């Protein structure tokens, strides 16, 4: 009775606190409009509850075909294409944040409504599509028994896996379909609490360094700042010795990393903070400047102070730099991939794909798609264009994109979908 009343009242208040996009506000590109902060008793919320595809598929631009490379995976997150064209899929669910407040119970329940009931596989699955029909004929449990694997990288005969608490190396020979050896631990990764558990990974341009994205342990420091040591940072890890240094900080949740194929710069997509209103704070994509501080938790998008952090640190706020390119508030960017060579053909050669998992903290669903952002001279040069849509139908979500990966061998884009537990493959239609 009490609980039901609480929920009913909560729903009413949420509606009262409604909010979403506004025609006069553009939150993509280098200079997003930032409205005033709006802290409400209940944050604006809308959860798209899951619904099956029922034979339908995501929608790509004309001239492209979409196939399900593999279905019935166990929460696929990030992908890696091996030199022989085999595709690895990291499957898992991490995080062990204890309940500190009544809010944690309720928010966990509400956000859970928009997730798959499938349990994370804690494994890496190998997919092989030798005949190129867009459907994997071979599927094996490549590495099992991992602790919430997420980021993947291949360098020089080794596969690197960023589990939620450690960076592991697995020696690999061309054509292998299973690795039973235990991984060698390159370095431990910050793993306490793991409010944001996903450890993004990419190899540096010369292969000597690995970059690991480590998300914050809270929305905005509400678990205390002691637990935020070595969080909201990108580590640069020496591939041989495992020694690491902080490459960038104050970068709230860097969920995916990629190297630009021409400039060789490290890029990240980053999820920004919640509960300052439906139109704050825009998630972003940025070339990561070594040594830079991106503001979290003290400020966002440069020097915009977050009043929820106390005591405030004006000296840190002064140091905070602006990211390069806003993607929109609460879109939850979780994937980034630059195509190389001829990319996906005309219109999709120079630019980047960004996978957006989708929002909860606004009344109009945002994200839930893969966008293409054109580049010129190594910098973003235009507005995001929808590339893969159809994940939302009515009030329901049929899928939620996570990792996106360009496959240089087939010339296709691969998209991991952790709601319908599918890997989608989008390729030019054969002429």
């Amino acid at each position, binding site marked *: *009775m*009490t609980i039901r*009343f*609480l929920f009913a*009242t*909560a729903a009413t*208040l949420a509606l009262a606190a409604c909010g979403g996009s506004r025609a006069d506000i553009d939150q993509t590109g280098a200079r997003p409009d930032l409205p005033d902060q709006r*802290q409400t*008793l*209940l944050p604006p919320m809308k959860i798209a509850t899951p619904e099956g595809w029922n034979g339908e598929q995501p929608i790509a631009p004309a001239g492209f075909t979409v196939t399900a490379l593999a279905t019935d995976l166990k929460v696929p997150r990030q992908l890696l294409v091996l030199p022989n064209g085999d595709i690895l899929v990291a499957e898992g669910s991490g995080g062990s944040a204890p309940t*500190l*407040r*009544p*809010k944690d119970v*309720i928010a966990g329940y509400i956000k859970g409504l928009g997730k798959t009931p499938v349990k994370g596989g804690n494994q890496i699955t190998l997919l092989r599509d030798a005949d190129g029909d867009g459907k994997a004929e071979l599927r094996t449990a490549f590495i099992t028994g991992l602790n919430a694997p997420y980021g993947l990288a291949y360098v020089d005969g080794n596969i690197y896996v960023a589990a939620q608490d450690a960076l592991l190396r697995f020696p690999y020979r061309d054509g292998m379909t299973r690795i039973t050896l235990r991984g060698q631990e390159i370095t431990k990764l910050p793993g306490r609490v793991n409010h944001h558990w996903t450890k993004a990974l990419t190899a540096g341009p010369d292969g000597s360094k690995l970059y690991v994205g480590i998300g914050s342990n*809270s*929305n*905005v*420091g*509400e*678990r*205390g700042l002691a637990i935020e040591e070595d969080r909201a940072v990108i580590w640069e890890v020496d591939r041989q010795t495992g020694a690491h240094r902080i490459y960038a900080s104050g970068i709230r949740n860097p969920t995916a990393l990629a190297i630009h194929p021409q400039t060789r710069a490290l890029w990240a997509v980053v999820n920004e903070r919640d*509960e300052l209103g439906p139109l704050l704070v825009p998630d972003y994509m940025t070339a990561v400047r070594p040594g830079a501080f991106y503001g979290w938790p003290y400020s966002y998008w440069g020097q915009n102070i977050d*009043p*929820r*952090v*106390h*005591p405030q640190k004006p000296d840190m706020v002064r140091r905070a730099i602006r990211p390069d390119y806003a993607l929109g508030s609460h879109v939850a960017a979780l994937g980034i991939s630059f195509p190389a060579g001829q990319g996906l053909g005309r219109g999709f050669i120079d630019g980047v794909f960004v996978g957006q998992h989708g929002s909860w903290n606004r009344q109009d669903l945002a994200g839930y798609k893969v966008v293409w952002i054109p580049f010129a001279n190594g910098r973003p040069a235009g507005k995001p264009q929808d590339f893969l849509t159809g994940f939302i139908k009515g009030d329901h979500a049929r899928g939620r994109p996570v990792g996106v990966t360009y496959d240089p061998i087939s010339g296709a884009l691969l998209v991991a979908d952790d709601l319908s537990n599918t890997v989608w493959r989008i390729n030019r239609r054969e002429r």
Partner: protein
Amino acid sequence: MPIAPPPARLLHPLHGVLLAWPVALFPAALLSDITYLQTAEIQWTNFSAWLITGALMMGAPVLLWAIVDALRVRHIGARRRHRLYLLLLAPMWIIGFVNALQHSSDGWSSVGTTGLTLSSLSAALALAAGWIAHGGYREYRP
């Protein structure tokens, strides 16, 4: 000389036991709010959030019981007392509920002037309700 009868009891003993929770927890939440504002140690606002939630959970049946009593009791003196009690209890619970939402904000925003004000009001109303509830009332002789 006849001995005066003891004052009539307003509440069922179980009602009294349940009422003890909001009477204790709302003022405790006020104290932990004050401590948070003085120390910025996050555990104190977490304490407040649980204390307020506990007060609301145990306070809900108290409130329902009080509503039933206020409607049902026929005796004039008792009814007056019951209504005054309800008049303190209902805003205590409603303000406490709003305060629970306030305390679900993150970090420094979880208390602030609003949270402190709401905590003070629900604490004061809980203490007043307890006072009225346990005060007894005079029997009117026909």
